[in-house]
């Protein structure tokens, strides 16, 4: 790499990380997130103060005479083991909160207690022996209406999360004696689908939701980071370039360094500042805590490959955004011109479902070989574990070549556009710059 590229990169890096905006963003973000979490937990606690711990019991006043109480508990939530571990971890973190109580209650089920009349039931509710009272009216069979007396309107109230157990109780009661218990169980849960997915070796293996989530956390994380980096990084870049254009420093700079080295140096300096910011956030334990809670182990291969796509994509989009932006006569214009590329970056998102369900399908493959959509598409495909190694290598090479080509043409545009003060070029003029410059 040329020495002058490094000189530019070093200056961009220094001038970025010593900027108040960057310092506040870097160190303030974890503090902000922490404060946000604190405020949310305070709100929840105040809500908890109104709500007592869930009793796990619901009173039923059966005026229709159709409910059959067997003394058991109605549990409706079937949770996969991996998800249960996540919920447990989250429950521990939120220990004591009404949310945790609700989760606990959902997992252990609800006991339905019969009451002869509404007054007795409401008195028990008042004494907090039960969390909710359901009144099944005489005309229930005709109308299907049930009235619930809930302790509060909170989203965590027992009245809200015992609706499904009540439905289960009523189905069992109504079908009792008419259907065999196994049939009743099927009525309640008609299809528990096990999805089998074809492996690379041709065999079929189950894949659960948790597995997909685990595989996609890294690519999704990098996609979000890429968008943030492109938006924030290109914003900072355009701000710097517009300043250089507006205060005329650019002429001195361009008489000292060629436009390509200048552009690359700026991107590397800003990219390094961005990575440093990420590093600081990581060491401040923001990201590890999130991952730990989710119980997700990272695959080093996925992380490294996604990082490669991330860096190349940042350089590609940064180059294009800055070069396009340089046509603008002021910072506002520049931002708007550059915005087009950010949209191109997220273009694969509407195809996300298609990419994930058919990672080696035609749509996924086409998007993988278009430089602008390649990074996000490939990160998703890598996440599914289905992308062949040769395609990963080929798309990375294609992306690197695209960065080189983009730098070459962008440098021409950048150099000429930056010297045009207060004049917006026409489209034919821009094409001529790209050809000649």
């Amino acid at each position, binding site marked *: 790499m040329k020495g002058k590229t490094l000189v530019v990169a070093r200056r961009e890096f220094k001038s970025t990380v010593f900027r108040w905006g960057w310092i506040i963003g870097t160190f303030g973000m974890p503090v902000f997130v922490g404060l946000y979490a604190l405020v949310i937990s305070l709100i929840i606690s105040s809500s908890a103060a109104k709500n007592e711990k869930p009793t796990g019991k619901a009173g039923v006043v059966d005026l229709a005479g159709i409910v059959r109480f067997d003394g058991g508990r109605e549990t409706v939530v079937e949770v996969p083991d991996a998800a249960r571990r996540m919920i447990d971890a989250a429950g521990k973190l939120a220990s004591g909160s009404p949310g945790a109580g609700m989760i606990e209650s959902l997992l252990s089920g609800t006991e339905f207690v019969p009451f002869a009349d509404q007054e007795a039931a409401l008195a028990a509710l008042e004494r907090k022996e039960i969390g909710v009272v359901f009144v099944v009216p005489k005309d229930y069979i005709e109308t299907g209406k049930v009235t619930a007396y809930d302790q509060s309107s909170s989203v965590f109230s027992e009245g809200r999360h015992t609706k499904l157990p009540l439905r289960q109780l009523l189905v069992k009661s109504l079908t009792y004696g008419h259907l065999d218990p196994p049939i009743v169980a099927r009525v309640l849960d008609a299809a528990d689908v096990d999805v089998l997915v074809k492996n690379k070796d041709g065999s079929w293996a189950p894949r659960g939701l948790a597995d997909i989530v685990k595989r996609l956390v890294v690519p999704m994380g990098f996609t979000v980071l890429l968008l943030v980096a492109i938006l924030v990084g290109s914003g900072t870049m355009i701000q710097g370039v517009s300043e250089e254009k507006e205060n005329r420093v650019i002429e001195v700079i361009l008489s000292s360094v060629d436009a390509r080295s200048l552009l690359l140096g700026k991107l590397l300096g800003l990219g390094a500042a961005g990575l440093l910011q990420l590093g600081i956030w990581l060491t401040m334990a923001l990201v590890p805590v999130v991952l730990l809670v989710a119980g997700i182990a990272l695959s080093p291969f996925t992380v490294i490959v996604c990082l490669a796509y991330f860096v190349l994509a940042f350089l590609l989009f940064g180059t294009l955004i800055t070069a396009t932006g340089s046509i603008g006569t002021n910072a506002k214009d520049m931002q708007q011109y550059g915005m087009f590329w950010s949209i191109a970056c997220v273009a694969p998102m509407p195809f996300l479902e298609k990419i994930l369900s058919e990672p080696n399908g035609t749509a996924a493959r086409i998007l993988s070989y278009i430089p602008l959509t390649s990074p996000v598409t490939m990160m998703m495909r890598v996440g599914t574990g289905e992308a062949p190694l040769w395609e990963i290598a080929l798309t990375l090479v294609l992306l690197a070549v695209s960065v080189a080509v983009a730098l070459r043409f962008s440098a021409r545009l950048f150099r000429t556009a930056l010297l045009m003060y207060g004049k917006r070029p026409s489209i034919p003029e821009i094409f001529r710059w790209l050809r*000649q410059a």
Partner: protein
Amino acid sequence: MPQLLVEDAVKAYDGKVAVDHVSFEVNGGEVFGLLGPNGAGKTTLIRMTMDILRPDSGRILLDGLPSTSANHDRVGYLPEERGLYRKQKVLDVLEYFGRLKGMKGGDVRRKAQAALESVDLGEWGKKRVDALSKGMQQKVQIVGTLLHDPDIVVLDEPFSGLDPINTRLVKDMIARLKHAGKLIVLSTHQMDQVEELCDRIVMIDRGKRVLYGTVREIKRKYAPELRQAAGRGNVVIVDGEGNFAGLAGVLEARPSGPATALTLAPDLLPERFLEQAIGAGMTISHFEASPTSLEEIFVHVATRSAPAPAGVTR
């Protein structure tokens, strides 16, 4: 000694020719004036010699080699559109400019500080640029242009914004650079500065070269045409006793300081006028044949499209 050769350079923007087949040559140890009215194509020409822009056709050679980014470090450029990072410290800006010009090692900052001291700005190195006056910023810009000791120095309007003291400072600096064998291209509208500083000039008008040669040569060869075009002869400055305006062949008399400036008929030479005045018994304490100024030539050339007189290279 460095040498700059511009050969048949052409540059057009959006179909409009900004530089039209311009050629000239500049050598080391020479101050070369690049003149022309606003919009004549000077800045485009300078940008091409800096390799900021490429000519559509023609060649620009530095020491016989094409002007490319490899030559960037040999050139110091003070653009007409001044620019500094206003929110940064003076020394930081100078260090960055120096390093961009290939300066290495830990003494770039020390050299920048020494250069600031040489223009009486030693105490301002750690101040932000926007704390400096316009004139001070101008001096910082000049320091930044010369910090890396370039062989070729291109100064576009170096005196704008400077008071007489600092104008003198910059003139002395240019003289030192010339003495050191540097190649200096000076672009300015201030014709008195051109007459004082430049060895040779080129004048561009509407993208074309309209004058090229030494200042003396151009003035000598251009004066008759200029006088003829104005329908008048020489101008003489006279101080003394007598009715100079009443002598035969004097077309106009106007005060010029304590003396009088007289415009003579085209066929009356200054020495004939002097003989005539002495012959008429007038007392003369001061007599000066006022030559045609470069400014007059500039204005004349820039406002007409007639061909150049024979003998003046175009």
